[in-house]
């Protein structure tokens, strides 16, 4: 846990590589502040830290439910939302492509949070087993898909990412 940061009427954060100043209201969560600033990919599914729809990657803490974090404590932090998965040319991340190809997104409301759970896993585990992926999604509720196609998509994306291959198989 990072040290307590000063609360203020606004905080500076770096969202998907862009420096931004977020206005914050007293007692506001990071989720509310991000949404008010137009980052609507951060979904408000439950407001109580259960569903994972508001997931962001927050600085060194990694995968975080932004509805549980006071915005005031995030001054100076890096925040990654699902938009951060796109590369500089706006191309989809393999995770996103696999979700599309495998019908792993139905209503889509949970998907930003699910994709970030998958991304966070692939940072730590480049050749995840099905069980590891299911565990990584344990903090996400998806009511549409039954998770199966999501697990398959994350596994397929892992296979496409360069680090998943043994070093000798250098080709992409």
């Amino acid at each position, binding site marked *: 846990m990072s040290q307590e940061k000063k609360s203020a009427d606004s905080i500076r954060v770096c969202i998907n590589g862009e420096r931004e100043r977020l206005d914050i209201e007293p007692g506001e969560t990071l989720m509310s502040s991000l949404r008010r600033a137009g980052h*609507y990919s951060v979904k408000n599914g439950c407001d109580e830290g259960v569903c994972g729809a508001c997931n962001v990657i927050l600085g060194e803490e990694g995968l975080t439910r932004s509805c549980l974090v006071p915005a005031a404590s995030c001054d100076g932090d890096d925040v990654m939302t699902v938009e951060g998965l796109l590369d500089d040319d706006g191309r989809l991340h393999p995770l996103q492509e696999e979700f599309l190809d495998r019908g792993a997104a139905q209503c889509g409301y949970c998907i930003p949070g699910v994709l970030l759970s998958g991304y966070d896993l692939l940072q730590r585990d480049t050749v995840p087993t099905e069980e590891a992926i299911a565990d990584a999604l344990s903090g996400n509720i998806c009511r549409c898909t*039954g998770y199966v196609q999501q697990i398959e998509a994350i596994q397929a994306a892992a296979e496409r990412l360069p680090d998943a291959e043994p070093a000798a198989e250098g080709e992409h």
Partner: protein
Amino acid sequence: MPPSELTEQSTASGETNETDETSAAVGESVEKVDGWGLVTGNARYTDDIPTEDALEGRLLRSPHAHARIRSVDTEAAEAIESVEAVLTNEDVPDKRFTRTGFPYPAPAPFDEHVLNETVRHVGEPVAAVAARSADAAERAIEAIDVDYEVLEHVLEPEEAMEPDAPTLHPEEYENPQENAVPERNIVCETRHEEGDVEAGFERADAVVAGEYESQIVQHLPMEPNTTIAWIDDRERLVLRTTTQVSHICRDKIARAFGLNRTDVTVIKPRVGGGFGVRQDTVPNQFISAALALETGRKVRLKNSRKEDLHVSQTRHAQTVEVKTGVQEDGTITAMHVDITSNTGAYGCHALAVLSNSAHEPMSIYPTGNRLFTGRAVYTNLTPGGAMRGYGAVQGTFGLESHIDEVADAIGMDPVEFRRRNVIEEGEESFEPAHSESKPKLESVGVTECLDRTCATVGWADGPDQPDDDRYQRGYGIALTMAKSGVPNSEYSRCTITLEDDGTLTVRIGVGDTGQGSETVMGQIAASVFGLDIESVHVKADDTDATPWDNGAYASSTTYISGNATEKAARDLAGKVRELAAEWHETDPESVELADGNVSFPDGTSMTLGAFAAEAFEGVRGPKRRLIGTGEHFTALSPKPFAAQFAEVEVDTQTGEFEVLRLVNAVDCGQALNPANVRGQIVGGAVMGLGQTLSETLPFDEDGRPDIRGLRDYEVMHAPDLPEIETEIVETYEPTGPYGAKSVGEVSILGPSPAVANAVDDAVGVRITELPITAASIWDGLQEGS
């Protein structure tokens, strides 16, 4: 028409769709037309637009299960700075309606107001506030003083029907349902008999009876119910809202407030799941409309997750009694199903859910002698509503559990017993008495589903038992049937414009809640022209811009709206042929449309884009932008079928159990988009497994929902999944678009009885109450030993 037999398995290698190429052909797993927005976070749901200019709406909710509101003192609330409106039952229209999302008049009693003078369940809205800040709105809610006359309440149907029970709806209401007895809280009582059941029981060698109970569960779509309402620059009321039935919502709002329908519009942005809860026009929508009309301002009214869990319509709890007469050779001679359904505070969906609860599962076994009796009863609980499966979850749990008990009574294998009695092509389903539809079914793949499942799992061999005989494994199976739209009710209309660049704009009023309906409509339209999916734009989110459609419910979308889309595309194709033939002085029949080209008998061709451009430029005559239209209304409702299998392992010392494997074989006609179809099957099966194993919305004796929030509502999470296999058993439905039937609901029905049957197979304990718990198995083990 011979059914083709294509199989798609969940274990299939991931080599499909590796390229970026899309194909329009129905039968292909094309990328969803809205998919990019879904995976990039760009999809905009109701609350994903700036609303800084909107007033914040908040609701005061009843703490009592049953109370009359003597008076409401709003003075202190109104005095709070920045409060713009405080509404009570005195400020809303006196005319009663039903929230049910069926077309007017709807099979439901008109038994509620926007805000009622008598509240009938905990959490029912009593007053509404709109203020310039959330803080002020919340303080205003706290400042409202209500004088309640608390009335006696009743939570169980059996008690509610007693002569001395409180009457929940003492005032006469419009549109009472069949055999309503309001003073005994009976919303409707129904009876449907075919053949002679008494005579059938007399011919039986054995009569088996059982009783099965199901619990209240919640849809829990991931997007909470939200409405943003405003008055636009033409003085029209606009709702931007989470709905599956935008046109019906528009109609109901207009009627409730005495407005012309032309003065209301409903915008349905991306919707974060529905599962039936958005098939009603929910209180949130009426109240935000009232606040916008009152203030003339934009109002945002969003249910918190906890509110949604407590007050959104639920699945009806039901008691299902089944009695079956059977002969020693396995012939069913008679069947009687009796259901008591707890509809809660209002009668929305009371009759239709009750009817569906029995008619779908009973249709699978077309014995000559069938009787269904049932009643729906008011109680002081959150109203039951439409939910995926629509009663058939409860009925199938009862009937498919019971079928195993009947097979057991005559010593027959439950699969063999099902095979002997199951419905075949050319037979009729057991249709509701109020429906005129009695079609002979033309595509019935249920036996093939059963055979395929048994082969996949090795039914005849039974499960491999663990070495330690403390643990016992069992196999269970269930057959299920659903529908494709409500016959004689559902109507869809589609228009398709050929734009001047050769692309198509499909306008259809059905709501995509995530199931992929916009994509499938696009595929159907594209296929008629041989275009790729990227050449089709589907507009389906706005009542101003789209023609009437009943909406996305009753598994109707692909069948009803898909037929309308195919007809519109064929109408447009005919117009293209006619104009092209005129240009070339040839017969329209000889003009071919394929691969995005218009081809003529002399071997020449032009692209559809060039054709459309020339038509619009008016090079060879008046300017034209061709439009095709199609509408679909039907007395038919083709049935999708499934066989669902569960393998469980039970710890005989504790009753703890685990579902190891769930196999779904589903006949949906032709699978127009196999990846979508598979997603619907798995999603439904996992939701069904949640109802089987863990989901429940309990109420305490005062009628308060007994959970604190989402953390207490146990849905399936990814690590809870058993091994899931899915096979699509394709038949061809001749009345469907490209041979398709529905798939949205059929797979949620089987998991409960399949698991119960597997538990019985493993340890000889018959569980008759949902959810199935280790404690109930333990109790059964104690009784048996």
